[in-house]
């Protein structure tokens, strides 16, 4: 039930009349659908919702959402969003960014948004490539990625978005796949409910420049073995419950163990604890194919958000003070000149 909206809005009510201009088959379509569905299911108020993006394929997103939207400049959406939230903390702010926008040109702003813990949702569409500029490798591209700018393969080590976010001080981390429509709304709702900066990495297929780069772990056929969907308090199981994650206490890493007859406790499988930062660190670093890829809400440990602290401090420091401009400009040591004598020019 929804008390906020008089008439319940449908996913389509969150779509604008603008023609969507992503390449046919782009993963962005699925994410747009997932977000519009989430908005409807949450009973979001369009007038209170602001989508803010930078530059890149994903950053066209706001034009397709029937909410307030600001398509800003490359990498700067987090900075702009900070001003929006400080000016009006009641707005519900969603930042749409990509691997290039959010981790390359805008990496600095992302770092500071996360450490400050601005209350907003960051959806980072990771396609490991620069799409809009026609296919150069990106900061998340794996070593050896061949692209127009790296014809012989890239040689620099990629950034891992969730590891970066955790290092920056993010208190909410989640991962999802563009096509995982069943799970996406719940993950986005959790991100939305979290007070503070929620960082969501979405594996997004760029069908034109980096097709199937995630396919080894996103294909439905093998997904049971290649993906592990996490739920707080539940054992970390995958492969239809036949395998689980256990902490190897000798050298502190997660390892795969077989679970016999569903007895995960006997196998030493850990239950997921989303408040455990160390566990989150280990989960985001699991790589296919040696390990399953961790998906769902990986980490959630709320703290008061930046704009709330700013508002609180502003109110505290203003309390009881006289707001008199005339008095303000007269402050300090003053003197009176009484007699008018004309100054010679």
């Amino acid at each position, binding site marked *: 039930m929804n008390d906020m909206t008089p008439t319940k809005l449908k996913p389509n009510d969150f779509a604008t009349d603008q023609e969507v201009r992503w390449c046919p088959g782009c993963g962005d379509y699925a994410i747009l659908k997932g977000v519009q569905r989430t908005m409807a299911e949450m009973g979001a108020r369009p007038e209170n919702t602001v989508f803010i993006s930078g530059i890149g394929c994903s950053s066209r997103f706001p034009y397709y959402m029937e909410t307030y939207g600001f398509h800003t*400049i490359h990498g700067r959406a987090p900075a702009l969003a900070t*001003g*929006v939230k400080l000016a009006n903390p009641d707005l519900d702010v969603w930042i749409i960014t990509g691997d290039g926008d959010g981790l390359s040109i805008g990496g600095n702003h992302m770092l500071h948004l996360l450490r400050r813990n601005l209350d907003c949702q960051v959806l980072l569409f990771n396609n490991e490539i620069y799409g809009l500029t026609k296919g150069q490798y990106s900061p998340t591209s794996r070593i050896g990625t061949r692209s127009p700018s790296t014809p012989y393969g890239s040689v620099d080590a990629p950034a891992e978005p969730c590891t970066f976010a955790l290092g920056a001080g993010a208190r909410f981390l989640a991962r999802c796949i563009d096509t995982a429509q069943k799970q996406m709304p719940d993950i986005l709702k959790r991100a939305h409910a979290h007070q503070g900066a929620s960082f969501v990495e979405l594996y997004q297929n760029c069908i034109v420049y980096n097709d199937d780069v995630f396919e080894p772990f996103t294909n439905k056929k093998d997904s049971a073995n290649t993906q592990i969907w996490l739920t707080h308090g539940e054992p970390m199981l995958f492969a239809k419950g036949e395998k689980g994650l256990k902490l190897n206490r000798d050298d502190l890493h997660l390892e795969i163990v077989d679970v016999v007859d569903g007895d995960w406790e006997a196998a030493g499988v850990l239950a997921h604890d989303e408040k455990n930062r160390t566990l989150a660190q280990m989960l985001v670093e699991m790589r296919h194919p040696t390990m399953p890829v961790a998906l769902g809400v990986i980490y959630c440990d709320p703290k008061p958000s930046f704009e709330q602290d700013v508002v609180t401090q502003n109110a505290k420091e203003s309390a009881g003070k006289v707001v008199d401009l005339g008095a303000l400009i007269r402050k300090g040591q003053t003197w009176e000149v009484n007699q008018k004598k004309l100054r010679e020019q």
Partner: protein
Amino acid sequence: MATRLKESPAAREREAVTVRFAGDSGDGMQLTGGQFTLSTALAGSDLATFPDFPAEIRAPQGTTFGVSAFQINFGSDAIETAGDAPDILVAMNPAGLKVNLEALKPGGLIIADAGEFGARNLKKAGYEANPLEDDSLKDYQLVAFDISALTLESVKEFGLGNKEALRSKNMWTLGLVLWMFDRDRQPIIDWLNTKFAKKPELALSNAAALNAGHAYGETAEMQQGLGRYHVGAAEVEPGLYRTVTGGESLSLGLVAGASLVDLPLFFGSYPITPASPLLHTLARLKEFGVTTFQAEDEIAAICAAIGASYAGQLGVTSSSGPGIALKGEAMGLAVMTELPLIIVNSQRGGPSTGLPTKTEQSDLYQALYGRNGDAPMPILATRSPVDCFEVAIEACRIATQYMTPVMILTDGYIANAAEPWAVPEMSDFTAHPVTHYEGETVSPYKRDEKLARVWIRPGTPGLMHRIGGIEKNYETGNIDYGADNHQKMTDTRQNKVLGVADSIPDQGFELGGPDDDMVVVGWGSTFGPIHQAVKKTRKAGRNVAHLHIRHIWPMPKNLGPLLKGFEKILVPEMNTGQLKTVLRDQFLVDAKPLNKVSGQPFKIAEIEAAIGGI
């Protein structure tokens, strides 16, 4: 003692005096200068100051590059510059003497702390022999005594450590200078009591040093012939006065300007010399609806300000040249999305890091042309510390009435310099309260007769829309790459900004008028020296006028016709001729440049000479 004072020669009457305090950056020269300024203001003289400090926070002691100086010019006539050449140089160490001697007037007075002129300090300042003892200063009047030892003596009873005790040297020196000008010490003692409220022993010891320096005046008068001066009160308009620096005045102007347009002020900034005082001042004014945000970088600072404006507040960002360069792309976004925004540039010597603590006016091109695309923006320039207040108010009006970013050009000299301010009545200013659009569904690019678009705050039901840096359709506000549409939008943005000229006053003259043969055109902090130079030349019988431009862009509508009426146009600037080029471009007039980029303000004499030269 009293009888002796009577016997002493009468205080010399002076119309104006320039004093320069110079010492190590750790010697507290800025503080001394600041307190002497206050005392001068309270004595009723008109004044102008010039703080001149090194870029290094604590440069190695005793070196020439660690010299910090503070110059004050005060008098009974109107004072508009910090003075061409000091009459009195107070040198707290050999380096201070070395760096500042050149500026001193021939025959000027040097007061030196002989106690600091030991072999080590002399060597550090690059002196082979002690200038106080050889004949090298014979063309000046030299009064030297051991201020360090006298200070230690004066605070002995407080049992401070040597280092702590010597910190009071500046107060001792200030005491002596107060004696020279017959000033009241009480306001300084009051200030010490406030400053050291938590350490009363320091308030007492500093006051003791101040009193000792003051008392020493008579001894120095007897033994070394140190004179006293009398500078009368200036004849100024009646009213309530205070001293104000450009940094303070601009901050207050922004708060007042935001209040007059009835919006909360959002200030996003990143620390940079010499712009930081704005952030520091505004951070303490939360009760006036001010939110300050120290961003992670210059770009974030302006983007956050744009975000705040988008959300309905008045976004302001501030920096100096290098930081303004970083903000360029975001300024374009504000132009494109037609959101109000104020960008303050406290100019400094450039390019690149340049001369962070020295002044220059070399960002005029950057302000006018420093963005990609045709990205016009109104530009205002402040001429003095006091002027910053009105300019800031005007910027708030233009930004909100025309839905446009506005740039304020000020500079390092204005930011740090102080002058007396006849505090205005807030009721004298016209309010232009903003109402955000609420109502029927409209295109976000619906414009009023001034071509300003509607300002719709997110949160307003029924008016959801999308804006951004991509070109938008003139009618609908949707993305539009069309040729005709881009032409129309570019023209509209241009015409909107040009239309600001309809709302600004005609260009007037500071001195002279259209009948003179020559006009000196200035902008920004060259106001003082130009005004004085023109005044002097006029007294000498030359028909020369002074015109000072506040509205750099768009320019007042009558400016072109006015300039075209003059045979000769001189444009003094602390750059290589930027306004000169703009005037030539806009009005096809033969504007002649006078340029100086030494990091120091113009001297009156330099402008006088240039006027004589053409």
